[in-house]
């Protein structure tokens, strides 16, 4: 009874990876469908006690897609995209600033013990204070509404990026440092060709966390004191009792947030192919 050899061929591997991607998209779609179904059943169909206060799924979706939305917000109105642009701009500015300041500071604290022993204690005192606890001071310090929001978003990102970069430097395998020393690497070569590339994965881990935390603080800041942005939509949706816009705001936030994380993951894959083993999945 002959059995086929069944050795894995190049074609087999490529189709496996493609299947993998399709499968994950399929699962996300399934998840979305399940969540919406749950909503539809509990609110639209059965109108359970607590659930009936929520807007019906059909109402929210039709509002979101309609050309003349009742409450003025749908994918066809300019204002909808202005809000998205505002929120996105704030996150990108804050996130960009946090990266520009956080990565170098993290690298410095990771490599030099002197810098770490002077800066880290201050860092550790201020970090437990949640970024959103800075709302009152931010409003007082920076006139207007735009800067406080960016400041709060920056603060959240900054902590995550700096800390992860520092931990990244400290987690580099000691024998790599020793091997480089054996091979005669001076301080600059050590930094440029060992410390920096070695910390890259941790830096991106930090960036992924930091963009998530940025959205976390942005929404809250916008809800408290913003005039534009997704947080503002959600909050006014409540205060003006235009409930569907609350959920439109939340969905949009989810989509845009997901997109920014995916973008960062894309950049990471480009910069760290060396982590992928021959079979193509991330080492």
């Amino acid at each position, binding site marked *: 009874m002959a059995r086929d050899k069944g050795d*894995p061929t190049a074609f087999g591997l490529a189709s496996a990876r493609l299947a993998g991607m399709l499968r994950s998209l399929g699962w996300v779609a399934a998840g979305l469908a399940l969540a919406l179904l749950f909503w539809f059943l509990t609110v639209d169909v059965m109108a359970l006690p607590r659930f009936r206060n929520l807007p019906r799924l059909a109402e929210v979706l039709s509002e979101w897609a309609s050309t003349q939305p009742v409450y003025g917000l749908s994918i066809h109105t300019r204002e909808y995209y202005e809000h998205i642009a505002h929120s996105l701009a704030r996150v990108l500015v804050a996130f960009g600033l946090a990266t520009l300041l956080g990565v170098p500071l993290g690298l410095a604290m990771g490599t030099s013990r002197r810098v770490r022993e002077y800066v880290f204690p201050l860092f550790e005192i201020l970090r437990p204070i949640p970024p959103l606890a800075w709302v009152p001071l931010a409003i007082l310090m920076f006139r207007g509404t735009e800067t406080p929001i960016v400041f709060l978003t920056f603060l959240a990102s900054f902590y995550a990026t700096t800390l992860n970069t520092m931990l990244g430097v400290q987690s580099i395998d000691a024998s790599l440092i020793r091997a480089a020393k054996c091979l005669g690497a001076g301080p600059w070569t050590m930094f440029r060709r060992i410390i920096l590339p070695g910390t890259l994965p941790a830096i991106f881990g930090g960036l992924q966390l930091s963009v998530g935390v940025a959205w976390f603080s942005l929404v809250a800041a916008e809800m408290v004191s913003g005039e534009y942005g997704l947080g503002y939509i959600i909050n006014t949706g409540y205060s003006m009792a235009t409930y569907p816009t609350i959920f439109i705001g939340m969905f949009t936030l989810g989509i845009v947030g997901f997109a920014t994380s995916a973008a960062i993951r894309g950049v990471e894959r480009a910069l760290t192919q060396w982590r992928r083993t021959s079979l193509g999945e991330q080492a």
Partner: protein
Amino acid sequence: MVVQQESPAAPAAGAGRMEVAALWHGHLLPGGRRFPVIADCNFALRPGELTVMIGPSGCGKSTLARLLAGYGRPDEGRIRMDGRHVDGPGKDRLMVFQESALFPWLTTRDNAEFGLRERRVLDGPARSRAAALLDRVGLGRFLAKYPAALSGGMQRRLEMVRALVNDPALFILDEPFRGLDAMTRTLMQEHFAGMFEEGRRTALFITSDIDEALLLADRILVMTARPMRVAADLAVDIPRPRTLATLFEDERANGLRKAIMEMLYAEAARSFGARAQSSDLAAAMHGTPRP
């Protein structure tokens, strides 16, 4: 080193007969196809006998061990234990893995008594039997220690006690001493041979080291490269207790070593032949490969 004390209760007479007939098994590939590991494998384990299974590394010995212990169903073929079809894990077939599988959060004593407690048979006599066995393997002073604080050799001895306390009909060991340094390995081999001698419990010992096989085996099954089947079934009638020193001079031992080396070399060349890429593989193969 091996002290004659109260021996672990000898298994029920005649227990531990395992038959493996026409066994086929393969791994599922991401592309959906099957990668054959075991092909038409047939052998039987006789009660009270220490059978050693040896074969080139990566030939599927561990996969077979997992199937015998019931951690997975074979694609085709039958595995029967004392007349009953094997279907899933059970206390009659206990296994010591290559890597330590002690519960890191349980002390030495709790690890040893785990099986008894799980099957709710942890009464006075059972508890003292476990304590006696722990003392016999030199772990008497470490009852309250956690595995992280034990050395490699001690962890292996604790794993053996944890299995033996449950009185399994078949004791399976998958290259248990591979991770240990050479010196500890030699001592553990002699220690295990002594303990086997007392209880004569049916055991299947898997290894890729010929000297280890010759030191321990009543019978050696030499396995082919992947897809694996039995290449040879050699009886080892060398008196016990054996030591590495006595084996050097023993004619039968050297004869067996040469025969097994030839077979392993043929199998290794065949498997490497299939995968040989760069030239140095051929160059390295001109001498007979070390076990």
